[in-house]
């Protein structure tokens, strides 16, 4: 079941579109914001709200990179592996974080504090290397600063 808050936010989005299924992507993002990821029951909840089949919603959910169909940690680290960040050294950044947290790309720490994922170019290439943690953007990354950045996320 969708919560009242989720339903309210989805219906607000509907004002911008001519019919309910057009908000499917927005609905997935809204529910994910509240629950962290999109489980099978989240897919079913959205489907019934929008008058769609669960398969149709799942087909859309799995198309988009930023919709998580598996559980993720409380904080998501996205390290840009785009071409400019490669030239400017995202690999040392990745290696540092990976060693510090003991996880590789696609993995979550056992305490569920962090999930580490690669991301394509973040549109800030003149300040490479770049990463995001949740909604926060970090650029001109220096390995020496990374530990302090990670500390901010519990």
């Amino acid at each position, binding site marked *: 079941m969708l919560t009242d808050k989720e339903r309210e936010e989805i219906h607000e989005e509907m004002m911008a579109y001519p019919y309910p299924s057009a908000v499917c992507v927005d609905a997935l993002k809204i529910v994910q914001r509240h629950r962290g990821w999109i489980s099978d029951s989240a897919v079913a909840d959205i489907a019934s709200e929008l008058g769609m089949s669960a398969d149709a919603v799942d087909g859309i959910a799995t198309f988009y990179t930023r919709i998580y169909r598996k559980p993720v940690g409380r904080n998501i680290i996205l390290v840009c592996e*785009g071409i*400019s960040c490669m030239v400017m050294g995202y690999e040392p950044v990745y290696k540092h974080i990976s060693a510090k947290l003991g996880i590789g790309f696609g993995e979550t720490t056992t305490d569920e504090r962090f999930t580490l994922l690669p991301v*394509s170019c973040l549109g800030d290439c003149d300040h490479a290397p770049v990463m995001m943690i949740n909604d926060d953007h970090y650029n001109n990354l220096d390995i020496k600063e990374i530990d302090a950045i990670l500390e901010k996320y519990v």
Partner: protein
Amino acid sequence: MEYPLTEHINPGRSPLGIDEYIRAGGYRGVDRALKEMSPSDIVSIVRASGLTGRGGGGFPTGLKWSFMPKENDGGIRYLVTNADEMEPATFKDRYLLEGNPQLLISGMIIASFAIGASKAYIFMRWAYKKAEKIIRKALAEAYESGYLGRNILGTGFDLDIYLHTSAGRYMCGEETGLLNSLEGKRGIPRTKPPYPAVSGLFGRPTVVNNVETLCWMPSLVLNGSDWFIKLGRTGEGGTKLYGVSGRVRKPGLWELPMGTTLREIIYDHAGGMLDGYKLRGIIPGGASSDFMVESDLDTPMDFKSPVKAGSRLGTGTMVILDDKTCPVKFIHNMLKFFAEESCGWCTPCREGLPWVVKVLASLENGTGKEGDIEILEHQSWYMGPGNTFCALAPGAVEPMQSGVKYFRDDFQKHIDGKRCPWR
């Protein structure tokens, strides 16, 4: 030198609110367009200016608008701003979105009026969280000031603008993939024809334009097409946002006359290469553009000239390949992105991209063999223009085909030495 796109942007400070922007004369273009001009007057100016789309394709904007049906059937028409900016090594629209949201909004009002759109969307990259906040605030201000909503400036013109943030997929930047995504579907491209001007968003006539393209409207209606043409150096009018990333002294983004040369952009503005690094190649306009090299440095970076050097302007933001970076690894990085982003509709793209990524990875790992370079060449042809529904695959092969051409010896060294010489 005039800076119509960036004059009101103060890096490091928050963008002008609508009141400040109006006081700075920012909404004069909208006032002029809605009160003194007809939609066809505006389309004529845009056509006469020769303004070409800044999203990478360079299609003439006025011509695109003129494809909208002449007859008004009373139904809704749409304008969609493409702010997806997922092309690797592209970082220009973000600057405009964060720096001067009212410029884009005023441009969208003028464009919507010109094409008869009463609803418009901004389709924006999910990652642009700061821009999202800024645009939401700017839209609310525009509604409060009476520049959006019903009966704008008492002219009877209605316009609503909605912000949609994407869920992340490069395909959504392709205009018909974008329309599918905005309809809540998988963001796969559509067959064309019909073109969006005939059947676009929700089956209605639609124009899709890039952020930078639409930001031209306010100054264009105020100053006219001759003014625009004179801003450029080579007959292609306007200024252009050019950017440089990679091992240069001052990576950055600058608004310069259209047709500024590569040499000026890289050496005068980006300060040239960092000490200890030599320039080997330039990807001039996002990952899906062909390499340019040292001997191309005097090419004016407009839409026509780079084509003679076998490349294209693309998005105008570049990344430099230096001598301490392996060209095979550099190309592998970009092709891996394209392979992951392929939507899988066309066989050459779905099968070809993962194949070349495998070959490039094996070259990097020292397990490449004779014949691999030929596979890359063959696949470059196979995925080229005409064999696929959208431009993803033909774009993806550009850095590979030109990379093999310019750095063939380096590819061969990986095979002969059974290892990457840069490792």
